[in-house]
């Protein structure tokens, strides 16, 4: 290597490099080495996890189906002014008939009907019936022929709908996810009363999650306190009672609650045997909200106890004694000295439980019945049963946004690096 002329007074390494430069190089090398270590996992998470979620989010706004299958009529429709209240011109009808013939041959036309049916009821049957009749339309005037096939083609609203949903991107899934829809004039309006379910469902999910979090706090606080104040030997023994449920399969715990709570189950049997309730008046504790609340509180309780315990463990018992020696009664000392010291733990446990609760799927699906289902159950429903994937994506993206906001809050309070496991 060529000798670098170092200015006098600058420190150099043995081979004459300025020390600063040499250090910078070494630093860059070790930076690259660190990045290379992280890279495999980063790429792996990117491909197997982040891309799928981006893909789902993309699906919630993607809308190429209509313009792809009605590829003749949609470009022509763009020139039609939907505000005049007149039907589109004859060439649009002709193009539509041809699109129908092709769509029937490729068996794709029904998908357009299903897609438009999400917006306006009856579209699916309109497309099905028209597809059957369209092949008999041999010559014009196509306007009359199509209207004869189904009179809804004579309705300007049908054409407005097709024109509105022919863009490559749509917000209608997001609107549907918050019980709104596009009106016939393109304005945003509320869904009809009987189709408003999602806002209620979001509210129910948030309410049940809050309730479960509160219950976990009420149940978790005393035992965390006990665990933190008992001698280590005893508290380690009792800790097993918290950790064993934590480590036990979720399905095992859900099964247990079914066994305990069902009408022919252990608790009802016990109550009947003791004589508190009559044999024919067994309490319904499962397949409703009560089932979801009880089972989820049980499942999430360890997530509350562990952070609370780790915070309480750091509070010296001398604080309480000091407060009492200064004249506070035990209750005041507890409320004014002990509880404020545990706020970090309450925040950490509370947000953790809340985040897990609002995305919960398995337990509500098994013990929730209809009144105890959460938003995640509807995401699953739209993915597996109704196959309205756009709406599933939109509901999922909204849920994800809520969770991420809460998570940022959690990060502010506890820091992700301090997350405790087990």
């Amino acid at each position: 290597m060529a000798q670098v002329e170092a200015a006098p007074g600058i420190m150099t390494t043995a081979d004459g490099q300025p020390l600063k430069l040499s250090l910078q190089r070494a630093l860059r090398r070790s930076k690259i080495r660190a990045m290379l270590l992280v890279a495999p996992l980063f790429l792996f998470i990117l491909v197997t996890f982040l891309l799928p979620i981006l893909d789902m989010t993309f699906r919630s706004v993607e809308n190429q189906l209509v313009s792809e299958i009605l590829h003749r009529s949609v470009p022509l429709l763009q020139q039609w002014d939907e505000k005049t209240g007149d039907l589109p011109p004859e060439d649009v009808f002709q193009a539509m008939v041809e699109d129908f013939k092709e769509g029937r041959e490729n068996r794709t036309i029904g998908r357009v009907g299903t897609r438009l049916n999400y917006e306006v009821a009856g579209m699916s049957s309109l497309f099905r019936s028209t597809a059957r009749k369209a092949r008999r339309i041999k010559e014009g005037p196509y306007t009359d022929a199509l209207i004869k096939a189904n009179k809804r083609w004579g309705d300007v609203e049908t054409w407005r709908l097709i024109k509105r949903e022919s863009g490559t991107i749509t917000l209608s899934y997001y609107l549907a996810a918050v019980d709104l829809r596009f009106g016939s004039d393109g304005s945003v309006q509320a869904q009809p009363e009987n189709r408003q379910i999602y806002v209620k469902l979001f509210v129910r999910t948030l309410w049940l999650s809050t309730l479960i979090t509160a219950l976990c706090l009420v149940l978790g606080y005393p035992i965390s306190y006990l665990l933190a104040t008992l001698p280590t030997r005893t508290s380690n023994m009792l800790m097993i009672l918290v950790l064993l449920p934590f480590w036990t399969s979720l399905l095992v715990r859900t099964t247990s609650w079914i066994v305990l709570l069902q009408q022919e189950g252990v608790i009802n049997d016990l109550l009947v045997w003791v004589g508190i309730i009559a044999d024919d008046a067994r309490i319904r504790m499962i397949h409703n909200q009560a089932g979801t609340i009880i089972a989820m509180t049980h499942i999430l309780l360890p997530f509350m106890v562990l952070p609370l315990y780790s915070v309480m463990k750091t509070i010296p018992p001398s604080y309480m004694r000091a407060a009492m020696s200064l004249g506070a009664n035990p209750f005041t000392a507890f409320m004014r000295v002990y509880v404020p010291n545990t706020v970090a733990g309450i925040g950490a446990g509370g947000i953790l439980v809340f985040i897990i609760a609002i995305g919960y799927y398995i337990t509500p699906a098994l013990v929730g019945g209809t009144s105890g289902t959460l938003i995640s159950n509807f995401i699953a429903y739209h993915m597996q049963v109704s196959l309205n994937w756009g709406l599933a994506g939109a509901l999922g993206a909204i849920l994800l946004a809520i969770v991420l906001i809460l998570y940022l809050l959690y990060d502010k309070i506890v820091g992700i690096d301090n997350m405790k496991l087990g």
Partner: protein
Amino acid sequence: MPPPVYAGPVERTWYYTFRVICGLIFFFLITPILVIMPLSFNTVPFFTFTPEMLALDPDAFSLRWYNDFFTNANWQGAVKNSFIIAFFSTILATVLGTVAALGLSRAVMPYKTLIMAILISPMIVPLIISAAGMYFFYSKIGLASTHLGIILAHTALGTPFVVITVTATLVGFDHSLTRAAASLGSTPVRTFFKVVVPLILPGVISGALFAFITSFDEVVVVLFVASFEQRTIPWQMFSGIRENISPTILAVATMLVVVSVMLLSVLELLRRRNERLRGMSPG
């Protein structure tokens, strides 16, 4: 630990009331797990204690449901799949996670917070959303309904635990040890296996256990991405509860509880060993 001698009657009462309340909460926590155990030995297909069982009549107990579990092809297939999937995803997650944690714990790593947030995101995002995303994406690239697809999905879900536990172990890691090894002429690879690995092993093993239990327990992603051919134990339990609930599920549940007791013991032993090592090492 009885209440202090100077405690007044009110404090005494409160002291015992508090113990009773805590006892009830512990009872709430542990009963559901214990109650299924005796029921899994039921002779009849009921989910409740029969009068004969309460009278401890030996005829009321049987291994019928365990027998069913071990002879039923559906369950045996599920067990096989569960272990295959959990095994491979644990290995993948442990290797990827440990290597990444080594990089993340270096002081020079740029954008540490952001990268950490991305790496542990599979733990934060609700499973139903991960499952929905994977369902669409994996079907597009032909990974849905394959063992490989589930293994990759479970690896992604398991790595955050490995990253967190190994990073936590590395916080107390004395970097002068690797420098000492290097100054004594050891190559980086040799240093890694002879010096670093033995020291971070407890963290790696507990991370691996977390990854294993994540995969072994996971049902949402399996429900969406897998088909009958890839069914796992939780998948089988889920469909069992939904369709024809039989006490075989209780037998499986009991065995799973035993498995989690074993896992818990291993973790506890690791924690103790780790604390001992920490206590011995200077600083």
